[in-house]
C-alpha cells in the first residue's frame, strides 16, 4: 500500500523534471496513474467483502510511536476507490479542459500530489501519519485553489481555505496527541480496545472538541462552511475533485473512522446531529438564492456534507450504512454535475443559470449526463440516489429522540437538493436555445465521457443495489458497528412511511423546480445579510488579530538595541523583584567570609572608576576603553578566585570586544551627546535596580546550603573517564560536548548573521 501512496508523490516529482512532455497531446496519459491505482484497489474488493482487513506497517519514528501504518478495510477501500475513480475522471477531463494551458504539467503535479496525500489520509492507521497526510491535502489544495495565481481573488480564497483547514489540521494534531496519551498508542485499530478508557478519561470532551474542529473545518460545516464557496474560484476540475468528491469528505472520513473509538458518550451524537442538521438546512436554503451554477453546487455540497455528519451523529447501523451509500451517491452525481458545469462554462463562457437554456440541442450527450445526474441527486427511482435517500429516511425515522423533527429537516434538505440537482443538471439544457449559443459545438469526448460514465454508474448501482451492498455497505457496517446485523439494500421496500416520504420529496422538489426560478434579485436580497454571516464575522476576527499582532510587534520590535535591552532588563527586574520580595528574608553569615585583601579593594576601586568614567565621559572611544578596564578588572577578579580559565577567556573576549568597538567608533564623530538627561536617569534607575537585585540574588544563593555533588563528580571522574586534569575543559569538550557543538553552531549563526546583514547593506550601497 505504501507504493500506492507514494506513486502520486513520485509522479509529481517526475513532472518537475519532465513536465514539458506532458503539456501537449500526451497530457491525457497522466490519467493512467489514478487508473492503475483504481484497478489496484479494485482487486481488494472481493477479499474485503469477505470481511478481511489488510494491515501494513513501516517504521518511521518508532520511539514516538509514529509509524507509517496502513489499513485497508471497507471504509478505506470505499474512499480509496472514490479518490482514484473520480481522480481518473478528473485527470482525463482536465487534459481537455485545460488544453494547451501553460502550466498544465504543474496542474497535474498538484493534482497527483493531492491524490497521493488523500490516499495516505484514508489508508493511515496511525493518527500521526494521518495528520501529516491531512496537512498535505490542505497544502496541495492551496496550490490548486490558487492555480490561477495571477488573479487576486483566487489567491485570496486559496489563503482563506488554507487558513480554515490549517486551523483544523492543528486541532487534529491536538486531538491525536491527547488520544495517543489516553490510549497509549497512535494506532487507531489499537485504540478500539481502550474505548472505555477514552470515554471515561477527563480529556474526553477536549478530544471531541479537537477532532470535531478538525472535521468541521475540513468538511465545511457551519460556521466554517464559508471557505468552500470561496474555493470555487479554482478551475472546475479542482472543484470537482477536491470540493465535492474527496477532500471535503476527509472530515467525514475522520468522523467515520473515529466513530467506533469515540462514540461512547451522548455528547458525540448530540453535537454531530445539531451541527450536521444546522449545516444541511442552512446551506440548502442558501441554494435558492444563488444563480451561479458553481455557487449552487457549492452550497448543495455543503448541505450533503451536513447530511453525512448528521447521519454519523445518529450513529445507528442503518445511519452509518446510509452515510456510506450516500457518500457514493454524492460523489457520483456531484462530480458529474461539476464536470457538466465546467463544460457549460468552457463552451458558453458563463455559469449564470438565468442565461443558460436549450443547450441540449448543441450538446446532447452532456444533456443526458446532466439529466441522469439530476435524477440521482433527486433520488428518483431506479437510481442509486433513491436507495440512498430511503436509507436516510429509515435512519431518521427510527432514531430514538425527535424522530419527527429530524425527518422533517432531512426531508426539507432533500427537497432543496432535488431542486439544486435539477437547476444544475436539467435547466441549462431545457427550453429555447438563445441565439448567442447557436454556434456552440459539442466539446471533446474527453470532457463529456467522464460525467456520462459516472452517471451511468449511478444508474447501474441503483438497478443492482447488491453491488454496492457487498462492496461497500457491508464491509463498512462490519468495520464500524460493534454488533453487526444482517441487512439488504433494495430498490423496492413495499408500501411504508419511507416510500411515502420519498414520494413527498419528489413531488415537492418537482413543484419547487417549476415554481421557483433562480433570479438575481434573490441573490441581492441575501447579500444584505452578509454583515452577520459567519464568514464576515470570522474574517473580521482574523483581521482584528492581524491588527493586534502588528501593534504588538511594532511595540516590541523597534529595531533599537537599547530599547530591546530596556525591555528585557525591565522584565527581568519585575520577575526577579517579585520573586525576591514576595518572600524576603536575607541573612548574611559574615563569619564564614574571607578577609578583604588589598588586591580586592584596589580592583573594586578600578571597577568603580571604570564604570563611572564609562557613564560620564563624552568621548565614545574613552567610554569603550574604560569599559575595557571594567572587563579586565573582572578577569583579574577571576584570577584571584582561582578561575584561570575564566580569566583567560574573559581577557581575550574583552580585548576583542574593545577592538570591535574601536573599529566601529573610529569612523564616527568623536564627541556627541546622544541621550538626553531624562533618558539617562531612566536608564540609570533601571541599571541600578537590576544590579541591586542581582546582588541580593547572589547573597541569597550564598546563604543556601551548598550542593557539591556535581563538583565532586567532575573532580573525581575528569581524569578517570576523560583523561583530563582541567575540569573546566573536560566538561566543555567531553562531558557536555554536545552542548559545545550547539554553542559553536550558534556562534557560526551569529557570524553569518553579521556577515549577511552588513554585506547586504554594502551591496545596496554599491548599487546607488
Amino acid at each position, binding site marked *: 500500500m505504501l507504493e500506492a501512496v507514494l506513486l502520486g508523490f513520485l509522479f509529481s516529482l517526475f513532472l518537475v523534471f519532465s513536465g514539458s512532455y506532458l503539456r501537449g497531446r500526451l497530457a491525457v496519459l497522466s490519467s493512467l496513474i489514478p487508473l492503475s491505482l483504481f484497478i489496484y484497489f479494485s482487486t481488494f474488493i472481493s477479499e474485503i467483502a469477505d470481511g478481511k482487513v489488510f494491515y501494513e506497517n513501516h517504521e518511521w519514528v518508532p520511539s514516538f510511536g509514529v509509524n507509517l501504518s496502513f489499513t485497508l478495510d471497507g471504509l478505506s477501500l470505499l474512499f480509496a476507490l472514490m479518490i482514484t475513480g473520480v481522480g481518473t475522471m478528473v485527470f482525463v477531463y482536465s487534459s481537455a479542459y485545460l488544453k494547451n494551458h501553460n502550466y498544465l504539467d504543474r496542474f497535474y503535479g498538484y493534482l497527483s500530489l493531492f491524490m497521493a496525500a488523500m490516499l495516505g489520509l484514508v489508508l493511515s492507521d496511525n493518527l500521526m501519519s494521518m495528520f501529516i497526510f491531512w496537512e498535505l491535502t490542505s497544502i496541495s489544495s492551496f496550490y490548486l485553489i490558487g492555480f490561477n495565481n495571477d488573479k487576486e481573488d483566487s489567491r485570496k480564497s486559496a489563503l482563506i481555505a488554507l487558513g480554515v483547514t490549517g486551523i483544523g489540521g492543528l486541532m487534529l494534531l491536538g486531538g491525536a496527541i491527547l488520544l495517543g496519551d489516553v490510549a497509549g498508542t497512535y494506532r487507531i485499530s489499537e485504540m478500539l480496545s481502550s474505548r472505555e478508557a477514552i470515554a471515561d478519561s477527563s480529556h474526553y470532551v477536549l478530544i471531541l472538541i479537537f477532532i470535531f474542529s478538525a472535521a468541521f473545518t475540513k468538511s465545511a460545516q457551519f460556521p466554517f462552511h464559508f471557505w468552500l464557496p470561496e474555493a470555487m474560484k479554482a478551475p472546475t476540475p479542482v472543484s470537482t475533485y477536491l470540493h465535492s468528491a474527496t477532500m471535503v469528505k476527509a472530515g467525514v472520513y475522520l468522523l467515520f473512522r473515529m466513530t467506533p473509538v469515540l462514540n461512547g458518550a451522548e455528547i458525540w451524537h448530540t453535537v454531530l446531529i445539531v451541527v450536521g442538521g444546522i449545516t444541511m438546512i442552512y446551506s440548502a436554503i442558501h441554494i435558492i438564492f444563488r444563480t451561479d451554477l458553481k455557487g449552487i453546487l457549492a452550497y448543495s455540497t455543503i448541505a450533503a456534507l451536513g447530511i453525512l455528519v448528521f447521519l454519523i451523529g445518529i450513529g445507528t447501523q442503518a445511519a452509518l450504512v446510509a452515510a456510506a451509500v450516500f457518500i457514493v451517491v454524492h460523489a457520483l452525481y456531484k462530480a458529474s454535475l461539476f464536470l457538466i458545469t465546467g463544460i457549460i462554462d468552457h463552451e458558453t463562457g458563463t455559469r449564470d443559470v438565468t442565461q443558460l437554456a436549450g443547450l441540449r440541442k448543441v450538446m446532447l450527450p452532456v444533456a443526458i449526463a446532466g439529466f441522469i445526474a439530476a435524477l440521482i441527486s433527486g433520488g428518483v427511482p431506479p437510481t442509486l440516489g433513491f436507495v440512498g435517500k430511503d436509507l436516510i429516511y429509515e435512519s431518521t425515522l427510527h432514531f430514538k429522540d425527535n424522530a419527527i423533527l429530524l425527518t422533517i429537516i432531512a426531508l426539507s434538505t432533500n427537497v432543496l437538493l432535488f431542486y439544486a440537482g435539477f437547476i444544475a443538471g436539467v435547466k441549462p439544457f431545457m427550453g429555447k436555445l438563445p441565439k448567442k449559443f447557436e454556434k456552440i459545438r459539442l466539446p471533446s469526448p474527453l470532457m463529456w465521457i467522464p460525467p456520462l460514465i459516472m452517471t451511468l454508474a449511478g444508474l447501474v448501482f441503483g438497478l443492482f443495489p447488491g453491488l454496492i451492498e457487498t462492496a461497500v455497505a457491508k464491509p463498512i457496517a462490519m468495520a464500524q458497528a460493534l454488533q453487526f446485523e444482517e441487512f439488504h439494500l433494495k430498490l423496492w421496500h413495499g408500501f411504508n412511511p419511507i416510500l411515502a416520504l420519498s414520494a413527498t420529496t419528489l413531488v415537492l422538489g418537482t413543484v419547487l423546480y417549476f415554481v421557483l426560478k433562480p433570479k438575481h434579485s434573490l441573490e441581492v436580497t441575501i447579500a444584505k445579510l452578509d454583515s452577520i454571516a459567519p464568514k464576515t464575522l470570522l474574517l473580521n476576527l482574523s483581521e482584528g488579530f492581524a491588527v493586534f499582532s502588528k501593534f504588538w510587534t511594532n511595540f516590541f520590535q523597534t529595531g533599537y538595541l537599547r530599547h530591546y535591552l530596556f525591555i528585557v532588563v525591565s522584565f527581568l527586574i519585575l520577575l526577579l523583584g517579585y520573586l525576591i520580595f514576595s518572600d524576603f528574608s536575607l541573612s548574611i553569615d559574615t563569619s564564614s567570609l574571607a578577609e578583604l585583601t588589598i588586591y580586592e579593594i584596589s580592583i573594586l576601586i578600578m571597577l568603580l572608576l571604570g564604570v563611572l568614567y564609562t557613564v560620564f565621559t563624552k568621548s565614545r572611544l574613552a567610554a569603550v576603553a574604560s569599559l575595557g578596564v571594567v572587563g579586565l578588572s573582572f578577569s583579574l577578579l577571576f584570577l584571584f578566585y582561582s578561575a584561570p580559565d575564566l580569566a583567560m577567556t574573559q581577557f581575550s573576549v574583552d580585548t*576583542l570586544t574593545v577592538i570591535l568597538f574601536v573599529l566601529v567608533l573610529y569612523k564616527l564623530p568623536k564627541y556627541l551627546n546622544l541621550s538626553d538627561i531624562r533618558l539617562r536617569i531612566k536608564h540609570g534607575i533601571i541599571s541600578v535596580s537590576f544590579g541591586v537585585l542581582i546582588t541580593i540574588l547572589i547573597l541569597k544563593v550564598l546563604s543556601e546550603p551548598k550542593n557539591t555533588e556535581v563538583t565532586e563528580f567532575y573532580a573525581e571522574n575528569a581524569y578517570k573517564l576523560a583523561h583530563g586534569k582541567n575540569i573546566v575543559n573536560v566538561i*566543555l*569538550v567531553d562531558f557536555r560536548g554536545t552542548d559545545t557543538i550547539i554553542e559553536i553552531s550558534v556562534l557560526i549563526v551569529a557570524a553569518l548573521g*553579521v556577515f549577511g546583514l552588513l554585506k547586504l547593506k554594502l551591496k545596496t550601497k554599491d548599487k546607488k
Partner: protein
Amino acid sequence: MRTLILKSASSYLLPVLLIFSVFILLRGHYLPGGGFVGGLVAAIAFVLHAFSHGLDKTRTILKLHPGFLMPLGLLVAFLSGIAPMVFSDLPFMTGLWAENPIPVIGAIGSALFFDLGVYLVVIGASLTIIFTISESA
C-alpha cells in the same frame, strides 16, 4: 594606527601568537587553556596584524576567507563526535583515546580533535565578524 613600531612588532608577533594559541589549545586538557581561548588568541593575532598592516595584507596571509574556517571547524568537531559511533559502536561523543601518548603533544584522543574544531570555529567566527564590521565601518 600605522605606527612603525607596531608594524614591525606585529610581523613577528603574528607567528609567535599563533604558536602560542596552539600551545594554549594543546595544554587545555591538563592546565588552563583550550580551544575557545586558543581560538580567541589566534583571532587577536590576526586582528593585531590587520591593525598595523591593513586588512588586505592580512587577507593575503590568510589566503582563505576566515568564514571558511567555521564549517571546517564544525565538521572536525562533529566528526570527532561521530567517530566513536563509526569505529567502536559507542554512543555519540564518547571519548576515544590512543593507547600510547605522542611526544610533545601528549595523549591523543577524540576530545583533542573536538577542541581543534572549537578552535577553528572560534577563529573563523570572530575574524568574520571583525573583518566584516571593519570593512563596512
